[in-house]
């Protein structure tokens, strides 16, 4: 191995690149060949090149507490994560199966709730879900599709088996980094790229636009599609702007829209222009001050009325949050069996629900060994990392669980897989996960690979951008 890999150890984690005995895995051989003989300085230069490109293009995110709105570059690691073809096909099948079940589940929950009546999912789990919208019971959505865009997070355990960590069925973000990462890799390592046959990802936006057009009201073949953003102060604004521009659609804030007589319009210099489909990156809660939070200035008064009348379609629909609730997650394998009569191809991580007495007992007795999560937090907040926690932290979680048992889940600490990442001046293993993006329209389209997120801090298992995470390009091979 060249200098960069000097001292590289997999320890007992599943390493993406190396076998436990230190041999390089077949699909990483060409990568190793390229990096062997590269000095740390050369690699550093490549990294600077990539960072500069990101800076100039403004590929950034904003951390919530920033007053001045300083934008940060989402740290990018130059060693790609490579997935051989067969492995990916397995993942793809699992993801397709899963999103089909989720959409069937949502349809069922908002209609006759057979899955509850047949005793598979307890009624109280549904009704106590923070994002369940009972106001939409019996409401039919275009083409019966609830989740059009889903980001499902996958991890690998010690044996390298892919497990589903969670689904993100409301407003999953990150795909813009994925697309920009690919651009960066092509620019910085063009030769490496040509040694592999990597499946392209550039068609994502076209596919997304197809899905959005597909769900137009009354099958309108030429709908006006817009992207609704909370605005420039939102941490994911770069992505909103990027997607709108790449799809060639208008990006709007709530104030640009007006609902009159059940139709949504854009305020343009030539008058009001009708809007048919809205890709909304705003939470249900902020969507319509007449229906949800009355203090929201981000939404459009009357938009829900237009939605109910079938005059405007929303992607994703209202109420999908009941499907990405961390407690509902527990039931997804059961959903797959119930609706599809199949075994789940991608298993869940073993999960305990404090809602169930037996599980709760187990959780409270094993806090220091478990990862405990609050049902509705995201970004890595509201979480207890058992093995790293203090007695006070565990005590406060114990009290919270006993006070509100419906609201917590626990999982064993998974020894997440690692991938070599550039740290200071050499490579070290860092924990990663994978977020593929699944589009559900006329057909299911899954972007090859997805966003590989890296926990850049040594030993950290938290990959979210707001807490020190970064990302890698993900290569699905075509051979």
């Amino acid at each position, binding site marked *: 191995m060249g200098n960069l890999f000097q001292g590289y150890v997999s320890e007992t984690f599943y390493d993406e690149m190396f076998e436990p005995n230190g041999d390089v895995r077949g699909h990483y051989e060409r990568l190793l060949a390229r990096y062997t003989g590269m000095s740390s300085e050369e690699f550093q230069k490549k990294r600077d090149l990539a960072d500069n490109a990101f800076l100039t293009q403004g590929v950034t995110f904003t951390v919530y507490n920033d007053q001045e709105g300083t934008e940060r570059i989402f740290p990018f690691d130059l060693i790609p994560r490579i997935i051989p073809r067969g492995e990916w096909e397995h993942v793809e099948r699992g993801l397709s199966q899963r999103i089909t079940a989720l959409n069937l589940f949502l349809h069922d929950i908002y209609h006759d709730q057979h899955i509850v009546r047949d005793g598979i999912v307890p009624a109280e789990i549904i009704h106590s879900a923070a994002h369940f919208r009972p106001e939409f019971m019996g409401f039919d959505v275009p083409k019966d599709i609830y989740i059009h865009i889903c980001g499902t997070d996958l991890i690998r355990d010690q044996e390298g088996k892919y497990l589903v960590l969670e689904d993100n069925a409301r407003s999953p973000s990150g795909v813009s980094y994925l697309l920009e990462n690919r651009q960066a890799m092509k620019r910085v390592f063009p030769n490496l790229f040509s040694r592999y046959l990597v499946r392209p990802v550039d068609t994502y936006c076209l596919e997304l636009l197809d899905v959005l057009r597909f769900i137009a009201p009354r099958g309108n073949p030429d709908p006006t599609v817009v992207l609704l953003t909370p605005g420039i*102060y939102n941490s994911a604004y770069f992505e909103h*702007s990027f997607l709108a*521009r790449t799809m060639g659609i208008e990006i709007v804030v709530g104030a640009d829209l007006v609902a009159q007589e059940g139709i949504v319009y854009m*305020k343009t*210099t030539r008058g009001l222009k009708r809007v048919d489909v809205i890709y909304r990156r705003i939470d249900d809660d902020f969507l319509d001050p007449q229906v949800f939070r009355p203090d929201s200035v981000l939404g459009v008064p009357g938009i829900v009325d237009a939605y109910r009348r079938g005059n405007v379609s929303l992607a994703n629909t209202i109420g999908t949050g009941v499907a990405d609730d961390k407690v509902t997650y527990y039931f997804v394998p059961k959903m797959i069996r119930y609706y599809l009569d199949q075994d789940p191809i991608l298993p869940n991580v073993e999960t305990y629900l404090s809602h169930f007495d037996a599980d709760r007992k187990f959780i409270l007795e094993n806090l220091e060994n478990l990862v405990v999560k609050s049902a509705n937090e995201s970004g890595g907040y509201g979480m207890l990392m058992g093995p790293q926690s203090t007695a006070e932290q565990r005590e406060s979680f114990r009290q919270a669980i006993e006070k509100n048992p419906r609201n917590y889940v626990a999982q064993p600490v998974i020894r997440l897989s690692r991938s070599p990442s550039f740290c200071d001046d050499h490579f070290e293993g860092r924990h990663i996960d994978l977020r593929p993006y699944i589009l559900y329209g006329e057909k299911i389209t899954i972007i090859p690979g997805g966003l590989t997120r890296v926990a850049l801090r040594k030993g950290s298992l938290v990959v979210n951008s707001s807490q020190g995470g970064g990302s890698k390009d993900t290569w699905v091979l075509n051979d």
Partner: protein
Amino acid sequence: MLSRVADALFWLSRYTERAENNARMMDVNLQLMLDVQPLTNHQHWESIIFTLEDTKLFDKLYPGIAGDAVVDFVTFERKNPNSIYSCIATARENARTVREQISVEMWEQINRMYLFFSSGDAKRLFQNSTYEFFKWILEGSQLFQGVTDATMAHDEGWEFIRLGMFLERADRTSRILDIKYHILLPSGEQIGGNVDTVQWMAVLKSCSALEPYRKHYRGQVVPWKVVEFLVKNQTFPRSILFCVDSLDFALHKITGVDRGDFQYKVEAERLSGKLLADLCFVTIDEIFRTGLHQYLDKMQGRLIVISKAIYKEFCEWLEEGETQGEEEEQEETQPTQFQEQKN
């Protein structure tokens, strides 16, 4: 295009132009102060504030009129929405909300100017050399306008930028011309004498018009010729007529109505066409008979009406924020509020 975006581009342009003009005006007047006796400086500064219509605000913020206070007020004062600093800050804020519509180069330039101003560098440069300081602002603004021309598609958004720029410029030229009215000759000096001439030259310099004037008239700097040049010249890009003609042209590009045969579709076009006709056919004699100050005052009023008509036509459904002041002749500031709620 979205009304909000058109509005943001319009004001981005107006505020950049305003910053540039204020810088030029400050620069010239500071130099003028050096040429003329200090006794009259008080009046001079007073008149600058008066023409900028900021007397009320100035009196509120500063105890008395002194040169330093005025310079500070016009250049750096954050509480003055029309200070050079505030203009650049507001322009940048507008640019931020429409980053998709402007080119990368435009954003980088306006951002650069803002970052410079909000760091301590601006004040330091000003203290070291006011000449360099104002030159920096001028060049920054000119670069922005040049980059806009060269890198932005000349589409509807670009026309709104032109609209804002020329409307603001017409207004600024009229105010600069008006300063002279307020600057009285020190007692003992003759009309047409040296001091008077120097003051008129300063007016021209404030519009970057001294050399173009000389090229056109080839003679002494004479009041009625200065007025003619700055109000009615057809080719000088800062004359009021040139500006109104350009903004009328931009309006017609936006509405798609041909300019021939005096056609118009919207109220704003009717008003700009009317103003343009007045400018083409008014004589200097008529202007002086009305009174230069009165004429310019009326001009500013008409420009404000045009600006409001533009807003009404293209953006009337945007929520009105608070507007400053009740008088018709107030300096215009942007009506729309920025949405600040974080998700």
